[in-house]
């Protein structure tokens, strides 16, 4: 029999706070970390808003070399990992690190490449060594090096679903017997390339980010990182770890349809959800909450709503669905991970994080989106969905742990 995979530790760096406590406070009280963008020149851009980590407080455990050479994305990931391992009181060195691994979704240190190219344009001296942390693999390498992890390591790039996909892959490493403990999540740092790209695609919101609202017109970018400590149930029990939730199952699919747009009827997303539900062996009415991808673009929210209708049928209207992107922005490679942390905190604390900036209902988005104010609720399972450019879809199902 395959071992059950449980979540025993969480760590987060987000625009609404560095650390689980401030993050959960924001989720419960509906605080947004979106601010005026003072980093990019946005005079001519569609959006003047952004979710930035400002100030970022590097943990004291970071060595001088790590502070000096790691990119922002890598430092966010490392900060979240340090919190997650402290949260679950687990030191990988205590088991030699051989059965401990890491799977991360990361876009890499794009800002580092930019700085280097900028030097070249100005014909001044750049630092070739700054290009070391450009690779999306750099964050996982930094974590493995810091903690001496000798188990499986992998880097996921499925665009905006990377963070969620990483959690699924990490669970597979445990279930297939490669590791006892896996660190999984995602990290993203803002860059000019990313901002300009989304701006050029006209994907940025001209005002606030309003998922599922009639007047929604795009995303607001954000940055941050989240790490989940995944562990086999037996390993967690043997060391007396506090179990926060169980990863009951996950599903993954591809639209094979369009380079940026989701399938118009959410076909790929629906198939990922169906897969997750069947693998988790859970009945539809037991899933009380869906943390949506909910980017706030016209296409995403409609197709996601259709997918939920297709999968949940008559239960769709009685299932709460919300997006926390108006609080933290779209954190791209980190989104699936940060939002999984929000989902688990909701499941554990039995509350539903709200969808902020929701004012005008859209007839085509007709679900219960937990508008503006968090709500207490009683539910045993929660689903986290991530969709991405290129038609990547990942759906995770978390189960509440009764201790």
């Amino acid at each position, binding site marked *: 029999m395959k071992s059950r995979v449980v979540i025993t530790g969480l760590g987060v760096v987000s625009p609404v706070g560095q650390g689980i406590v401030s993050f959960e406070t924001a989720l419960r009280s509906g605080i947004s970390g979106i601010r005026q963008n003072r980093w990019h020149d946005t005079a001519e851009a569609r959006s003047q808003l952004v979710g930035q980590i400002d100030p970022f407080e590097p943990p004291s455990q970071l060595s*001088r*070399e790590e502070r*000096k*050479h790691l990119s922002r994305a890598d430092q966010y990931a490392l900060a979240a990992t340090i919190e997650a391992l402290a949260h679950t009181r687990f030191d990988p060195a205590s088991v030699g690190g051989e059965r401990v691994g890491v799977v991360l979704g990361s876009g890499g240190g794009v800002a580092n490449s930019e700085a280097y190219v900028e030097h070249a344009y100005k014909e001044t001296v750049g*630092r*070739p*060594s700054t290009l*070391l942390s450009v690779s999306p693999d750099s964050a996982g390498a930094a974590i493995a090096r810091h903690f001496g992890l000798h188990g499986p390591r992998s880097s996921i790039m499925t665009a905006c679903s990377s963070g969620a996909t990483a959690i699924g892959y990490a669970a597979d490493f445990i279930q297939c017997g490669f590791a006892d403990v896996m660190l999984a999540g995602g990290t993203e740092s803002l860059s000019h390339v990313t901002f300009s790209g989304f701006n050029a695609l006209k994907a940025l919101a001209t005002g606030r980010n309003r998922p599922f609202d009639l007047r929604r017109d795009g995303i607001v970018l954000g940055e941050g990182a989240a790490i989940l400590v995944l562990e086999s149930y037996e390993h967690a029990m043997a060391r007396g770890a506090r179990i926060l939730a169980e990863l009951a199952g996950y599903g993954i699919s591809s639209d094979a349809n369009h380079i940026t747009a989701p399938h118009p009827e959410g076909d790929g997303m629906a198939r990922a959800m169906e897969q997750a539900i069947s693998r988790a062996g859970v009945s539809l009415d037991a899933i009380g909450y869906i943390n949506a991808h909910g980017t706030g673009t016209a296409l995403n929210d409609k197709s996601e709503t259709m997918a939920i209708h297709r999968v949940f049928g008559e239960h769709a209207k009685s299932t709460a669905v919300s997006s926390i992107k108006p609080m933290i922005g779209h954190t791209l490679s980190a989104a699936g991970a940060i939002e999984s942390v929000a989902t688990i905190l909701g499941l554990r604390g039995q509350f539903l994080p709200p969808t902020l900036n929701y004012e005008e209902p859209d007839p085509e988005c007709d679900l219960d989106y937990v508008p503006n104010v968090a709500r207490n609720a009683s539910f045993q399972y929660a689903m986290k969905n991530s969709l991405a450019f290129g038609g990547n879809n990942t759906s995770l199902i978390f189960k509440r742990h009764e201790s």
Partner: protein
Amino acid sequence: MELDQIKQEIKKIFEERLNINVAKFNVDDDAGLFADDGWGIDSVDVIDLVLGIEKTFGIRLAQDAEVQKHFASVNTLAAYLKTRQAEMSAA
């Protein structure tokens, strides 16, 4: 290039390529390049240092112990670079 000038060029590389604020470092030219109470250069900085030297002095540095032993202090490095320059002008 005179020894003093070579030392100045090395410190310019520290300043421009390694982001070291040389004026703030109260260490002499015998201070260890890699020592915590010296210049505090690490293995990643060395990439930028070596490339900086190659570009500034127009030489190639081999990755072997014979070359590495000269990366002890500003004095030893400058002395080594001076002999390399002498070899070049003799050739």
